[in-house]
């Protein structure tokens, strides 16, 4: 039996019953999950050339050094978390290889690689009112003049910490949240999105 089949994502229960938006209002907000992605936490000193080169060599993308930005490279995207901390997102089932390649490339460089897959998940929030519904709980300035695709920021949505990344100008946001908080976040979003018309879809439109 493959791992995939035996996995259960944090929002599995919440998504078990998909909801359609009231056709009258339409769906101003769509909520879905991008389950089972590889989440890898990387720590290292960006002033160390060796470190940066080793990482870029291993994952094929240069780490973003500008705070709160995202670097995309093929199947892997790297999100800035802190001056010496990044989150690498990989497609499902790729994380183990990536971790191994990274560790090999880093050798005895002072760095830390941690596979956090399964410990957090990605909630996708999409639609004309996606920005509004996030703003009900998130104090970040998400105005297009300030925050757009290619950027990410850690903050909180209501009472759960979250890493927010804008995907496109629909707008579409990916919210990375710790596993145990995912259900709360989803239920909070469900309530907050009522006035805009809400659709909860099992499979994420990627």
């Amino acid at each position, binding site marked *: 039996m493959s791992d995939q089949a035996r996995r259960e994502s944090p929002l599995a229960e919440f998504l078990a019953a998909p909801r359609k938006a009231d056709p009258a209002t339409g769906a101003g907000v769509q909520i879905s999950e991008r389950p089972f992605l590889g989440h890898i936490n990387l720590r290292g000193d960006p002033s160390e050339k060796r470190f940066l080169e080793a990482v870029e060599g291993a994952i094929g993308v240069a780490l973003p050094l500008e705070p709160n930005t995202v670097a995309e490279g093929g199947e892997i995207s790297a999100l800035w978390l*802190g*001056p010496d*901390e990044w989150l690498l997102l990989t497609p499902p089932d790729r994380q183990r290889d990536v971790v191994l390649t990274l560790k090999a490339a880093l050798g005895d460089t002072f760095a830390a690689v941690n596979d956090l897959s399964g410990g957090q998940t990605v909630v996708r929030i999409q639609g004309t009112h996606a920005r509004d519904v996030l703003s009900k709980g998130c*104090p970040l300035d998400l105005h297009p003049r300030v925050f757009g695709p290619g950027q990410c*920021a*850690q*903050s*909180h949505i209501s009472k759960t910490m979250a890493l927010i990344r804008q995907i496109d100008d629909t707008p579409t946001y990916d919210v990375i949240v710790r596993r145990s908080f995912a259900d709360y976040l989803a239920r909070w979003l469900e309530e907050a999105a009522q006035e805009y018309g809400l659709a909860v879809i099992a499979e994420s439109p990627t």
Partner: protein
Amino acid sequence: MLLISCPWCGPREESEFSYGGEAHIVRPKDPDALSDLEWADYLFMRNNPSGRYLERWLHAAGCRRWFNAERDTVSYKIKSVYKISDPAPRGDE
């Protein structure tokens, strides 16, 4: 409601931060060499001024970095923020 400039992430809402109290309290290198009185001073005694205050903040919901801020505890205005490794700003006013 404070708006605090994280040295890395820029201005963010107070709700993203947690407070660390007085800054620049250095842990004694050799605690056993201290008298109980000296140890108590390090452990508990604080300046707690009303006015200019150098204090510690953690961008808890953000980049998880500790940093220092120079804030007026009466007006709540934040004059500057600086990294832990930076020296304390001079109180020139």
